[in-house]
């Protein structure tokens, strides 16, 4: 970017920060915040529940198409080099084989524009997709077999012989670090902050901790394997995908195949879990290319190993956290720096310093994420990228300092509670973490916590730990929605958003019904289709807000049109959109609800069958005007076996400050689901990477352990339910915060149980023996 652009941007940023609240989206609270007894917050069961429990919800690999062929992929077994020989003759001659595709016969394709390089870019990496003989990571697809059945494709794939000429791949972290690091760039900004000489302040502080933490690679492992059913209709590409980004996928596929975006139709009504992994990877592209080449519809469903080979996960981090404090516990210095691995072909510098930016009122800060490059499958976003592993380092270090200073760790956190954002100076939109701590401490029985190692029950040592959970409020640009209201008093909301199990369709049906004054049965929520309005990524916990802002804009437009249609003969004559609200199947004056006309009556008099309104959400300027974050107070009780070193979680409590909760039932599941994944991060999850060969060594659910039923106790998840006055519906998103803070809460509990600090995740039994 040029100096002029930089300066302009800085000026704009300042202007947005200083603008009067009223000019900013969220400056006038969403009227829905004041609806206290309606559908908002109600524990409504999922509207797609009956379909899902009866196996009738159709996932991406569940669309049978006439003439469909099945794909199987062959993966490289070296991390870097070239394909010297590729013998596909036996595979081609095998029964049922339709096509073997390699770099020699694949159609010419452009590389995927990688994520964040352009607004709708969705590529996991920008490596050419089967275009040449180059190998960039161990596991890169080198051939695709298409056959009449999956069994035939899998068998033929086993007949392909590849010989490689090995090049030099960088697969060991030490070598990558020796090659030099570069500062991480996240959302266009460097992950660096140097405020008031933190190193000097640390050196001078009377109390300090200065420790190193490491976190391993993680794999998302949604239970639904990555899959797509694809076919061409002339020059148009049709994809039944499992994606959390229908618009991004369609746009990116269009770039790859040299099509117009309108020629690509991507739908994804049900996604069997995503957590950041269900975006665009090579498999959809290879399936579409093979479909074009063979002239057949193609089903591709990666094997579980295949998911590990070509879908990236969370990268490794090495973190230093140093805190210097005064006698009263207030922080003089907060240092959070370290290194993460990426590849030469993507840009996802796991931003683990994000929590430290706004969590504590330190007098100085030094934050820095350095990136080094490895030849490996491109790492990517995974639930709470940054915060999940960043809170592990930060919140363990706070616990270590509290222990060293003999201050209760909750008290230490409260003593460092900032009044405004400590690094940007922006006011908080709403911040109630202290309240969450007080409520949680009482509920969990925190006062019963003893000294480390003090509580023994038979073979077990028992301990309590806590940590702060935090995740920002996001709203990405591009939201738009359409509302169609018909004379029979039904409404359809259309927006290209996603349902991966978060409860989006249910929660948004509740919101729309409440906004329009309809029952949930009268509202249809259409989503998961790139031909619908808006660009709404299911990521960053932003869908609730992004949809909320778009639907609210469309609703305003709808009310305007309805008031025009109502005309002078209506009781509503002369009213402005801001003066009316939806209630009882029609529009009513907000302060005099008896001034009312039903939608049916308005449309009938206007002789209209339906009315449609479409609008875009305003740009998310609120993000630069307030510091907007959710928080949680996380409490954990563990027991550690003195015989085996095994850690079991007895109890877990999360008290969340996430603004208004839209659906108590589905939100609780989101919190709990995040916490369960956090227990995995704390105790068992690690994608093992062979530093000699760059190969993932445990590419299966048998060898990569995720929490199972017996690992998970009843999890208590409660919330303060205080609306954020500056967000749509007063909500701030609940999908990712649950995983944050869990690693630290568990590690701190393990310390309290045993007196041992484990600073290297996961906390497996060998580290406690």
């Amino acid at each position, binding site marked *: 970017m040029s100096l002029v652009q930089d300066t302009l941007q800085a000026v704009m940023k300042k202007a947005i920060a200083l603008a009067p609240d009223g000019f900013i989206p969220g400056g006038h609270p969403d009227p829905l915040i004041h609806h206290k007894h309606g559908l908002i917050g109600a524990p409504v*069961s*999922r509207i*797609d*529940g*009956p*379909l*899902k*429990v*009866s*196996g*009738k919800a*159709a*996932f991406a*690999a*569940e669309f*049978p198409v006439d003439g469909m062929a099945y794909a199987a992929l062959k993966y490289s077994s070296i991390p870097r080099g070239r394909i010297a020989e590729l013998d596909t003759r036996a595979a081609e001659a095998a029964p049922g084989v339709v096509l073997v595709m390699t770099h020699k016969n694949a159609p010419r394709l452009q590389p995927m524009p990688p994520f964040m390089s352009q607004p709708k870019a969705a590529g996991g990496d920008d490596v050419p997709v089967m275009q040449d003989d180059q190998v960039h990571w161990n596991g890169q697809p080198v051939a695709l077999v298409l056959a009449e*059945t*999956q*069994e*035939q494709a899998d*068998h033929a794939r086993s007949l392909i012989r590849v010989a490689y000429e090995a090049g030099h791949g960088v697969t060991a972290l030490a070598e990558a670090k020796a090659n030099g690091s570069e500062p991480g760039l996240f959302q266009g900004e460097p992950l660096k902050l140097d405020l008031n000489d933190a190193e000097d302040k640390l050196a001078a502080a009377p109390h300090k901790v200065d420790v190193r933490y490491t976190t391993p690679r993680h794999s*998302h*492992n*949604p*239970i*639904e*394997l990555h899959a797509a059913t694809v076919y061409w209709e002339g020059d148009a590409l049709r994809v039944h995908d499992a994606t959390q980004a229908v618009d991004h996928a369609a746009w990116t596929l269009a770039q790859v195949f040299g099509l117009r975006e309108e020629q690509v139709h991507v739908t994804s009504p*049900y*996604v*069997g*879990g995503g*957590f950041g992994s269900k975006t665009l990877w090579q498999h959809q592209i290879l399936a579409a290319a093979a479909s074009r080449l063979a002239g057949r519809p193609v089903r591709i469903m990666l*094997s*579980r190993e295949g998911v590990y080979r070509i879908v990236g996960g969370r990268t490794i981090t090495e973190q230093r956290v140093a805190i210097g404090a005064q006698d009263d516990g207030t922080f003089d210095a907060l240092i959070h720096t370290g290194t993460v691995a990426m590849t030469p072909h993507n840009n996802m510098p796991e931003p683990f310093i994000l929590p430290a930016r706004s969590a504590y009122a330190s007098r100085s800060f030094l934050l820095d994420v350095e990136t080094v490059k490895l030849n490996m499958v491109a790492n990517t976003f995974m639930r709470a990228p940054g915060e999940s592993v960043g809170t592990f380092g930060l919140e363990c270090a706070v616990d270590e300092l509290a222990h060293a200073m003999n201050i209760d760790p909750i008290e230490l956190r409260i003593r460092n509670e900032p009044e405004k954002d400590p690094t940007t100076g922006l006011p908080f939109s709403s911040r109630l973490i202290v309240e969450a701590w007080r409520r949680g401490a009482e509920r969990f029985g925190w006062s019963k916590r003893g000294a480390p190692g003090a509580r023994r029950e038979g073979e077990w040592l028992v301990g309590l730990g806590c940590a702060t959970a935090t995740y920002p409020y996001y709203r990405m640009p591009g939201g738009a929605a359409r509302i169609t209201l018909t004379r029979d008093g039904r409404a359809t909301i259309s927006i290209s958003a996603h349902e*991966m*199990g*978060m*409860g989006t369709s249910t929660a948004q049906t509740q919101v729309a019904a409440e906004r329009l004054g309809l029952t949930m049965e009268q509202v249809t929520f259409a989503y998961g289709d790139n031909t619908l309005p808006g660009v709404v990524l299911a990521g960053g916990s932003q869908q609730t807000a992004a949809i909320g802002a778009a639907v609210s804009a469309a609703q305003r437009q709808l009310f305007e049109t309805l008031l025009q249609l109502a005309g002078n003969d209506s009781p509503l004559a002369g009213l402005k959109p801001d003066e009316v609200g939806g209630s009882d199947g029609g529009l009513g004056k907000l302060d005099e609800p008896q001034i009312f006309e039903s939608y049916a009556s308005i449309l009938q008099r206007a002789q209209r069958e339906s009315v449609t309104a479409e609008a875009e959400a305003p740009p998310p300027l609120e993000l630069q005007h307030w510091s907007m974050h959710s928080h949680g107070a996380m409490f954990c009780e563990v027991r550690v076996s003195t015989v085996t070193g095994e850690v079991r979680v007895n109890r877990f409590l999360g008290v969340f400050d996430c603004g208004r909760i839209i659906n108590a*039932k*589905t939100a*609780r*599941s*989101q919190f*709990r*689901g*995040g*916490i*369960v*994944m956090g227990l995995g991060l704390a105790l068992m999850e690690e994608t093992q990477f062979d530093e000699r060969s760059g190969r993932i060594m445990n590419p*299966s*659910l*048998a060898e990569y352990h*995720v*929490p*199972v*039923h*017996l690992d*998970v106790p*009843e*999890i208590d998840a409660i919330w303060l339910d205080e609306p954020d006055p500056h967000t749509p519906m007063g909500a701030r998103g609940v999908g990712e915060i649950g995983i944050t803070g869990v690693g630290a809460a568990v590690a701190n509990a393990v310390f309290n149980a045993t007196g041992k600090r484990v600073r290297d995740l996961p906390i497996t039994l060998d580290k406690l023996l």
Partner: protein
Amino acid sequence: MRWTINGAEVDETVDVRTSLLDLLRERLHLFGAKKGCDQGACGACTVLVDGRRINSCLALAVQYQGREIVTIEGLGAPGALHPLQKAFVEHDGFQCGYCTPGQICSAVAMASELRDGAPSYVTEDLTAETIDVTPEEVRERMSGNLCRCGAYNGIVDALTETYAPAAEADKREAA
């Protein structure tokens, strides 16, 4: 080749390598049984064979000829859900819903294992004629069904409500 699936006779000719799961999904378009690993590690493909639960991805279709196979589609459908399916909806025993048919089929067989007194690692009295449906038994016995969405608490609640209604009522009273 012949199977009895959800009470109906099915005739198909398949490759000897075809798993029971792929017979169901790819040939019969019974997509309720899910594929999460194809290696016996996740339980998403669980179906009932003569009332017992199996991972259909590890079963060759040809071996199961003549057996009574029940899939999630055979347990209930929207509008006529099995009590356990209803309890899953009520207790939010799922999020994405992908592991759900497997969890439900597995749970149906688990309940009969408890009725028959088949002990587990957490059973106190190994000689009991029948074993109570407790959260602890459920957790142990359902551990072969992974849920990455982490809906375990809801699943345990759905199972205890359906199979141990009295215990569930006590719990509610205590709360």
